[in-house]
Structure formats: C-alpha cells, structure tokens
C-alpha cells in the first residue's frame, strides 16, 4: 500500500487507517455489514507485525480487547448491531476500568435480527451507552471514507488522553460504499503515547497494580462514577465537532449526521442557489453532542429539520440543545431498497417549510 490515494470500501478504509495510524490488534466476529473490516485486517495486519483475532463471540471479542488494553496497547473491535449489543457489558467495563480502545459499529436495521442493510438506529446505544451505569464515551460519525481517515488520529488521541473506549459509527450503506480516499492524514501516532504509568505489565520494579471496577467500600463506586462524569464534562467542553454551512441568515436549518448528512448538504446547497435561506449542521461527534453550534444559531432560525435513518433519536438531542427556542421537526426512514435516504422526501419537507 505505497500510494496514498486509493479506491476502497469504507469498512476497508477504516481498517487501513488503523494500520497506518499504528493499531496492531483487531478483534472481531463475522457479522454483516462489518465483516469487511476483519477480512481486510486478516489479510494485511500480519505484514506490519499485527494480528486479527477472530474470537468465538462478541462477548469474547470485547473481553479479549479488554485484556489487550490492560497491557497498555491500543486495539480495536468492529461489529454491527446484534454484535454491538453483546459487547455492551464489556464496553461499560472498559470505561469503568479506564482502558482505551477503538470501536466500530456499522449500524444495521433492528431490533432483533432486523435487516443487514444500513440504518442509524444505534444512535441511542452509542451515545447513551448500552451498558448499565452512568458513562459516556466519545462517538465519531464520519460521513465519508476521507473523514474516517481524518478522524482516526483524533480518535486515537482521545482514547489515550481520556483513557476511554472511543466509538465510530457508520450506517451499513456507507460501510459498504466504495470511494476514493487520500491516506496522507493517517500518520502513525499510537507509539507516541506512553501507557507505562497505568498498564498492567507485571509488578517488576514497582508495587502491584490491580484493575478493579467493583467496590470494596461503598465510596469506591461513588468515586468511580464521579471520575467518569468529570471526564464526560471535560469532553463536552473540549471535544465537540461539527460541520456547518450557511447558518448566518438561515431561517430553516437541516441537521443530519453520517451519510444522510452528505445527502442533505447537497440539497441545502441546491436550495441556497435558489436563494432560499436554508442552513445546514452535520454533527461529527455524537458524544459530545455539538450543542455549541445550536447555542450559537442566529435568531432568524425558526425551524430545524432533523433527518435520520431511524425514527427519531438524534432529534432528541437537538431538542435539548435548542431548548424550545425554535421548532424542531423530524424526517426518518429505515430500510427498504436503495436509496435508503430519500432525498425527494427531504426536498418535499423543505418545500413545505420554505414555500417558494
């Protein structure tokens, strides 16, 4: 892989970005539409001294990742909805244990077996946490292969800085989409982080270290949660990312993340050319939710249309962020045949909101 510009499936772009940034361990179990990641790492990780480990279940996947992370090395696990369900216990555990890792959920239709095609129905599970307890982890929602590459070094940095699992989510349509990508931003950074201060590498030249997420006194649990909440607060203050377009005089704003964000941006650009005062927001971090951009919206905004491949999840965060200052409506669609993101329907909704 000498060349920097390649034509690849987004799941493979994710895998190649991991390799180039210095991640050497990938744990996974076959599941559509995330299997392409492990197929790629199985074929390529050994060339750089890494290893793809196919575990017997997603339970084993996330716990193998836990053990690897305890050694101070950064690993990754990729999956899709039903497998992500099974990993929740382990993700909560890793968060409590302050173990960094990179996770990927290629979202499909659910609940249950649902359908193997794409959706954005795991927004709640990603941002609220599917495990028990109070915890938040950074969640990145790239909208293109290029953005996966751009975000990978950022995600790695946040995983080490906050000592936390970091999650990427993309819908299954995007996961299987093939596009041109430039890998120049994917620089090796993993080896530059020193984990010697906390890793469990054997009690040589120091006292023993024990990884404990349980309580021996009731104050232990209290302290752990306080620490996690302080991290979440710091992330909320510093880590919000979003893309915005033409908000200055907007009357209507379209908000969408991931692939629907890309579709909506094009529609908004189209309408702007017609002179309609429409703006656009695409959250890139789902946690922390980019509430700053909503706080800074001009008074001219009277309506926000949230578009998702689900029946109304992120829209709840938008409503919290605007806190009644303007109307918030939602258009959601899940599954069916292509195109799963119905641009025509978005255009119709906008036409109703902004009469020509």
């Amino acid at each position, binding site marked *: 892989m000498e060349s920097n510009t390649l034509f690849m499936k987004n799941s493979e772009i994710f895998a190649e970005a991991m390799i180039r940034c210095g991640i050497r361990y990938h744990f996974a179990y076959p599941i559509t539409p995330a299997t392409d990641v492990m197929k790629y790492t199985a074929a390529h990780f050994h060339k750089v001294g890494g290893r793809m480990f196919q575990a017997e279940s997603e339970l*084993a996947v996330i716990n193998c990742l836990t*053990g690897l992370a305890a050694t101070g090395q950064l690993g990754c696990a990729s999956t899709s909805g039903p497998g992500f369900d099974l990993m929740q216990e382990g993700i909560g555990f890793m968060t409590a244990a302050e173990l960094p890792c990179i996770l990927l959920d290629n979202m499909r239709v659910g609940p249950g077996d649902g359908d193997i095609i794409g959706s954005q129905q795991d927004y709640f599970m990603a941002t609220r946490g599917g495990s028990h307890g109070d915890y938040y982890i950074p969640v990145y929602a790239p909208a293109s292969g290029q953005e996966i590459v751009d975000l990978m070094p950022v995600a790695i940095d946040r995983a080490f800085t906050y000592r936390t699992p970091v999650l990427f989510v993309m819908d299954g349509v995007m996961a299987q989409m093939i596009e041109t990508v430039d890998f120049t931003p994917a620089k090796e950074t993993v080896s530059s982080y020193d984990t010697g201060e906390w890793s469990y590498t054997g009690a040589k030249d120091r006292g023993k270290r024990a*990884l404990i997420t349980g309580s021996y006194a009731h104050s232990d649990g209290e302290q752990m949660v306080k620490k996690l909440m302080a991290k979440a607060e710091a992330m909320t203050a510093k880590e919000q990312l979003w893309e915005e377009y033409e908000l200055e005089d907007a009357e209507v704003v379209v908000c969408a993340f991931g692939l629907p964000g890309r579709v909506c941006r094009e529609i908004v650009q189209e309408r702007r050319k017609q002179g309609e005062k429409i703006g656009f927001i695409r959250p890139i971090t789902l946690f922390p939710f980019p509430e700053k951009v909503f706080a800074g919206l001009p008074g001219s905004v009277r309506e926000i249309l949230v578009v998702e491949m689900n029946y109304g999840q992120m829209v709840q965060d938008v409503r919290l962020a605007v806190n009644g200052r303007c109307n918030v409506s939602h258009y959601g669609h899940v599954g069916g045949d292509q195109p799963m993101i119905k641009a025509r329907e978005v255009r119709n909704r906008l036409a109703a909101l902004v009469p020509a």
Partner: protein
Amino acid sequence: MKTFREEKNFSWCPGCGHGIVARLCAELIEENNLRDRTCCVVGIGCGGFHHHYMEIDALEAAHGRSIPVATGYKLGLPDNFVYTLQGDGDCASIGLAELMHAANRGTPITVIMVNNGVFGMTGGQMSPETLISQKTPTCPFGRDAKLHGNPLKVSEMMQEMDGVAYLARLSVATPTLVRKAKKGLAQAFKAQEEKLGFSFVEILSPCPTGWNMKVVDSYQRLAKEVAEILPVKEFINKVGGES
C-alpha cells in the same frame, strides 16, 4: 514470601479452600521467579479475592470473562505469565463457551477452576457442579438430574482437544492431595512457560458455608462424595514432568 501477603486477614470463610489454592499459586510463582511478569485474571465470585493476598498484577474481569481477558493480555504480552482464577460458577456456567474455545485453540494461558459446587459469594446457589440430591437455595429439594442435568464434567469435556497441553482434576481435601495439587499446578504453569498450549486445572475445594457443614465434615465430603463423581485425575500431560 514476597508474593503472598500472609499478614493479611482472609475475607474467605473459615475452612474455605481458596486460601490453600492462593498459597499454592504464590509458592509456585516464587519458586519459578515469575512474580515480575505475572498477571492474574480473576473472575467474579469468591475467587475474585485471590489477588488481594498476592503481590502480583491482577485484572478483575466481568463475570465469566476471565479467559478472553487473559487471551487478549497474552496476545499483547506473550512473554508474560498469565493465569485465571475462577470459581465453577464463573468458569463452568457463565464462562463455559470461552473456556472451551480457549482450550481448543491452545491459547497458552493457565486456567484454574476452583470447584466447590456452588455459587459461594451469592449464598451457595446451585452451580453446574452441584452434586445430584445436594440441596441449595435454588434447588431446595436437591439437585434433580431430570430438572437440572448432572454435574458438568468440565475436565472430561476437554480431553479430546489437541490444544490442551495440561489437564487435571486436583483436590485440596487432604494434605496428601494438597501436595499432589501443587505438583499438578506446577505442570500447568510449566506448560504455559514452555509454550506447549492451554493448561487447565480443576481444583476440588470445600465451601463449608455454602454447604451448611462443619469444616471437618466438608473436607470429608470433598474427599469421598465429591471425588466419587468427579475423580482426581490427570487427563493430559504434554509437559512430561512428575505430578
């Protein structure tokens, strides 16, 4: 002994076998000079106290997940010494799938299953290892094979797996058996150190509290009734040493 915190008061009940197992592990770690590069992964249950009395790095895994945690750890640090310390609830019930796959894969870790036939920490409920007609709070009329199945012979299940380098059922029922258990455990440790594959020891141990028995009676039951169903035996030894 540097590895074992003898001065600490155990939080295990009087007569519990976990203390004996911890002592054996500590002695072997010292004798083989492993302390600097040992990591113990404990499960949830009374086995989870194991590392409190050990001066070694330790990870407390989620219930039943010690083995994949140890697997991931060993991938990251293949020259470190890794063992799991789990009860029969953790290892044979909720964590059975992970045990079987690690064994079959020949993952070079050592798994110690302290088998006392009940869920000790939560109050002596039925485990996969509870004997037929044994009463527990969740089988108050005694374990019934028709309702609950027979005690799960975990060691026997792994006999045909090529990945297993050492496999034995040991016991702490008598001083002689404790000495024998140490030898078996030494072979299991050696199997890992020599990168021969997966090593597993099941150590029969009493739970006087969970069994509602006096300590002396519980050791007698372990030596007789339990050993009749789950015999002390070495199943596989690719290390070749005496045990």
